[in-house]
């Protein structure tokens, strides 16, 4: 059961992992990327400060195990990935404990709010990016995120009914637009837009 932590993936291990994910190498690479991205978020949601490297370590370990000739139950491979990720996370906790720091302790206090001028600039960027979405998408985003708590929930139910989709489908759709907007606003701010 002991994993040889610290070693990078061998070419054979990577080959084994890709072959396990999909016989087609291109699709396997896409699946590899997809699982890695989700693992990054899972580690982030667990409060880890360096989720990328923990996701790398998880993928490497699974690859090494496969490279060693271990078969993984093919109809439920994700359970194996989450199991390995779980162990990687616990090993992180163990290292943190050894350093006499808890994971919560590593996390810093929230940074202060941005100054007013920056907030105004962010708003201007948001306006520009909203325009880039087009009227219908912009309308959906603004309706979805509008209002205080109770009003917002009721508004979303109405919006989902208007569109003839489920609330979950609406949430995902609104989230996708939001992710694009957020990325656009970052680009605007870093590129000096809306000065």
């Amino acid at each position, binding site marked *: *059961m002991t994993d040889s932590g610290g070693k990078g993936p061998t070419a054979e291990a990577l080959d084994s992992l890709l072959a396990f994910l999909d016989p087609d190498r291109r699709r396997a690479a896409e699946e590899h990327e997809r699982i890695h991205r989700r693992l990054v978020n899972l580690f982030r949601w667990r409060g880890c400060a360096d989720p990328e490297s923990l996701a790398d370590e998880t993928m490497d370990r699974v690859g090494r195990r496969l490279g060693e000739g271990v078969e993984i*139950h093919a109809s439920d491979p994700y359970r194996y990935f*989450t199991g390995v990720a*779980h162990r990687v996370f616990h090993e992180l906790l163990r290292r943190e404990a050894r350093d006499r720091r808890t994971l919560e302790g590593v996390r810093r206090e*929230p*940074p202060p709010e941005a100054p007013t001028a920056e907030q105004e600039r962010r708003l201007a960027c948001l306006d520009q990016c909203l325009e*880039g979405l087009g009227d219908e998408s912009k309308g959906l985003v603004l309706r979805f995120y509008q209002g205080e708590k109770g009003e917002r929930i009721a508004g979303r139910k109405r919006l989902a009914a208007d569109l003839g989709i489920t609330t979950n489908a609406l949430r995902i759709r609104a*989230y996708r637009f939001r992710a694009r907007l957020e990325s656009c*606003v970052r*680009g605007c701010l870093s590129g000096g837009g809306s000065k």
Partner: protein
Amino acid sequence: MSYPRDTGPGDGTRDNLLRRYLLGQLDAEDAAAVELEALADGERFELLLAAEAELYDEHARGELTGEDLRRFETRLASDPEGAARRDFAAALARRADHGSTAAPEADGPAVPEADGPAAPKSEAPAVPLEFPGAERGATGRSRSVHRGLALAATLLLAVGAWLGVRVLQLDQATDRLEAERAALLAERAALTQELADLKGAEGAGTPEGGLSEGAKAAAPPVTVSFLVAAAVRGGPASVFDIGDGVDVVELQVEVEGGDVYVAFGVELRGPRGVAVWSSRDPGVERGPWGAALTAPVPAPVFGSSGRYRLAVEGRRGDGVVEEIGTYALEIRRP
């Protein structure tokens, strides 16, 4: 898994479960179940991303209080990335409520269904929207069309350049990996030959040892490894297939709080509840969370398909032996 009462601002119990996961309020097994779903199901994963975004919105509107607020600030918004998302959420809430941009009426035109599939998946590499920049303020349909064409051209050029660079990087990485692979395969072949020579020499020196016996001994056992640790408490048994040609089934179990035990024992019970295999010396890896056990079970022990149970017991320092728990396995044989 126990589903909590719906007290959150989402649409139901499910939303509240995701919120509690993100705020670190679920126990380990429920959290593992949420993570397994998110890893295996793209829609579940996106719902978690959406739930996280909604937490940022609630924070921006001052709707998070008490323990939820503390957990949000320490778990999600404590680094620069989280701070940027927090500031974005504040701007979005402000614009949605008091928009200076021309927001359509609340019951304005519905977004057609076809718009959904056309929207980029949030899991795809992010392609930022271009912001209008110098063309801001231009009015009229032709300006809009030109601006749209310019944006599309810019986007295509950027994507093309990015793809070109990426292909080059991947080619280089592939070459490097192929070279490493060739070197490792050569090394493995040399070691395999060396091992076979040694086994052959050993076999020749024993009365029963022939060349074929030596070659057979050199073949490593075929092992399948099952992680039983992530099984959901109270849920269905983990289903595992054991194919032909498997020699060893390695069962892995994590025992939270197992650090209080100085030794462990495992017992496998067959479909009829009868013990079919046991070990007083499973592999043990210890950590502050407990202990991780490895039980290498010979594959023939799983003689037939059916529901097996792995019982785990621990011996405390004072000699008392306690049953820690059992794990259900649904075994399928060809």
